[in-house]
């Protein structure tokens, strides 16, 4: 009946309390519960990867390699990269937030293939455990890129285990992407046309295309690395006539688009949040939507910009450099359109919006420095230096992790039925922003001055900036620990969340918080345009101050 009044008095039946027990979670096919399973697993991976990052920063506090040996250091940055890329960033927004909200956004009861969705989580867990086992029993030191012939012939670490772990996890990513594409094509509610589709669905759709088309290639490539190591088959070994460059081509054919698997869903989160907290329809909806597809398509033809100094022909490099510049266009379309959305909007400064501000600024810096790296001459100078490290951390952490945090805060009331404490959340957003910039901005300078990446010792003149960076990493760590604590706290003590705490439009806000198992009591019929904030009653955001 009246959902609002019912919520005030007794807890209504929802996906969390519909049944209990460990079995009801491990055998669930409910996309919302699977999203929570993913949330727990990738949080664990985030802290493991973060621990390795802290070890790296501690080692770099002093110029001498005194905390760990160079071999250990190699393992630390390799495992940091492998865990953060394959086991945290790639599943983060799609598998947690996307899994939870996409079916609701399209007005469906579930994803197209609920059992495949559960299977993808089990595959993820199997892959993660395999990779972790390889790390516990000795680690891997090839870097997350597994360059041959080092990985196939010379490394004495557990390359096969780590590669198989990533190989397995790849299939969970493929299945998630496949599920999203089919769901968005076939499961939309009546009236929800492509032009009315939330931008979060558009960007996840674009990312899903990359997952489906790119991931199989890295799977077969890592399988060949494992086979080469086990049977010495010679496909990538120059001593046997193999071509190590072929490995780099195949690896980056996936791993460059994978960068867009990581950032596109984050861009979707930002689109939702910017429009909601500006009380305005997204400026240029069609352009933002199609920019996602353009990024996905262009992302497949720029991979060799990782190989400018690896010995590819100058003409190939020239073409790839030009194509890489082109990616800047749809990315800029998004940034400009978010800014234009905020222009003359009535902006409220809730935590998700603070993170979104952070995303826009930091992603812009990360994106613009990407143009430096796409230009041939400059790339020769800063290749394999801390400039590159700073660049991709601005996109991956400053961009994607910010977006993930923004999305978690935005949809937390929907996921759990509880509000998080706004003041603490604002403080943590501030800490993350300050900590992040203190950590990574000095690395741009270090890289430009010539400090190479992947060494555990460095000349003393680089120390001041490295100390600054390590200090920033500590602030950043506090900024990440705080949300962990208050999110858990809010599960028990948080204020009860109303169905639509942000006064947002979108089908997921039209059902209870937390939603019932089947999401909607009746299949919704969509008769309005996306983000029609101007025609919504102008209510203040009243909750969560």
């Amino acid at each position, binding site marked *: 009946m009246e959902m609002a009044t019912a919520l005030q008095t007794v807890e209504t039946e929802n996906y969390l309390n519909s049944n209990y027990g460990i079995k009801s979670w491990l055998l669930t096919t409910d996309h919302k519960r699977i999203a929570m399973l993913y949330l727990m697993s990738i949080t664990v991976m985030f802290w493991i990867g973060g621990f390795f990052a802290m070890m790296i920063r501690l080692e770099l506090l002093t110029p001498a390699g005194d905390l760990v040996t160079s071999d250990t250091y190699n393992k630390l940055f390799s495992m940091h990269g492998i865990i953060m890329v394959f086991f945290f960033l790639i599943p983060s927004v799609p598998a947690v937030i996307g899994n939870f909200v996409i079916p609701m956004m399209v007005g*469906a*009861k*579930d994803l*197209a*293939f*609920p059992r*495949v969705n559960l299977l993808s989580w089990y595959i993820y867990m199997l892959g993660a455990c395999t990779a972790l086992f390889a790390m516990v029993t000795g680690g891997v030191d090839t870097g997350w890129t597994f360059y041959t012939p080092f990985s196939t012939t010379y490394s004495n670490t557990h390359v096969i285990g780590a590669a198989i772990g990533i190989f397995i996890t790849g299939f969970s990513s*493929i299945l998630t992407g*496949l*599920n999203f*594409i*089919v769901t968005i*094509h*076939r*499961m939309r509610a009546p009236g929800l046309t492509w032009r009315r589709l939330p931008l979060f669905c558009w960007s996840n759709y674009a990312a899903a295309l990359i997952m*489906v*088309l*790119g*991931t*199989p*290639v890295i*799977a*077969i*490539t890592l399988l*060949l690395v494992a*086979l080469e190591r086990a*049977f*010495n*088959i*010679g*496909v990538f070994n120059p*001593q*046997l*006539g*193999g*071509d190590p460059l*072929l490995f780099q*081509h*195949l690896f980056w054919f996936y791993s460059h688009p994978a960068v867009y698997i990581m950032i596109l869903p984050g861009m979707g989160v930002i689109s939702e949040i910017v429009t909601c907290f500006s009380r305005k329809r997204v400026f240029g909806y069609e352009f933002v939507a199609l920019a996602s597809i353009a990024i996905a398509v262009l992302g497949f033809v720029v991979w060799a910009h990782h190989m400018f100094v690896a010995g590819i022909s100058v003409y190939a490099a020239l073409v790839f450099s030009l194509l890489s510049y082109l990616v800047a266009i749809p990315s800029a379309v998004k940034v400009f359109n978010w800014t234009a959305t905020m222009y003359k909007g009535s902006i409220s400064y809730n935590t998700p919006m603070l993170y979104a501000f952070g995303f826009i600024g930091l992603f812009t810096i990360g994106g613009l420095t990407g143009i430096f790296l796409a230009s041939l001459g400059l790339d020769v100078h800063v290749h394999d230096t801390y400039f590159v490290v700073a660049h991709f951390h601005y996109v991956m952490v400053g961009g994607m992790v910010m977006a993930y945090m923004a999305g978690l805060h935005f949809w937390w009331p929907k996921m759990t039925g509880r509000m998080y404490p706004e003041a603490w959340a604002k403080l943590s957003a501030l800490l993350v922003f300050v900590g992040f910039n203190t950590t990574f901005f000095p690395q741009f300078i270090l890289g430009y001055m010539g400090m190479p990446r992947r060494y555990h010792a460095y000349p003393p003149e680089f120390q001041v900036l490295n100390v600054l960076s390590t200090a920033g990493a500590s602030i950043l760590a506090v900024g990440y620990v705080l949300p962990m604590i208050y999110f858990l706290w809010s599960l028990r003590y948080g204020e009860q969340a109303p169905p639509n705490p942000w006064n947002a439009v979108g089908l997921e806000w039209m059902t209870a918080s937390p939603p019932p198992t*089947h999401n909607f009591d009746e*299949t919704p019929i969509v008769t309005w345009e996306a983000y029609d904030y101007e025609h919504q009653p102008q209510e203040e955001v009243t909750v969560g101050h």
Partner: protein
Amino acid sequence: MATSDVTVDNDLRNAERALQHHFADMEQQQETSTFGMWMFLLTEIMFFGGLFTAYLVYRSSYYQAFVEGSQKMNIWLGATNTAVLICSSLTMALGVRAAQTGRRKLMVVLLLITILFGLGFLGIKGIEYHEHWTHHEFPGPDFHFETIDKTPPVDPTHTEIYFSLYWAMTGLHALHMVIGVGLVSWLVIAGWMGAFTPSYFTPVEIIGLYWHFVDLVWIYLFPLLYLISKKHGG
């Protein structure tokens, strides 16, 4: 809403049972499943695509070595296998048709023949593998290869790359065949027990798609690995 259970025949009731809760009707469910399988096959193309890329790169670099490697193939066994797979595709397609028209026994028989063809393929492939193994044509420390034509001499390590790709590509294909035989066996059991009707036979259809795809991969593998031109091979 209003559910009218007036004189629903067996078939319709069966279809209702097969309808999963999150779909509006059977049509949506069927279209969704088929679309999902096509997407999956797209990932399979990319999966094999990595190997095909490696094949093309090394074939253009070491053409002579690839010619000599392919001359170690038993073309007759390979051709027989191609014929076997094409026949299996035919029986699979007829099986889907039988499911669609509700002829249960015919469907089961056709799918059983498909399985026999599939096992026949794997058996012949096994004979070929055995021959290569005994002739040391398996990459690794035991690999041995005598070049036929000394002018220009072919580097055995380059032929080893040919055999690496041969084993990887046909091995991955054979793995897909094993999975396919397993899936069709499940169809036979489920079909015999009456799980499929003219209004619900989606599993037969999408496993059929998978089967045809695996056949199609072989249609490319056979000429690429067995039939490299002998014109320059001497």
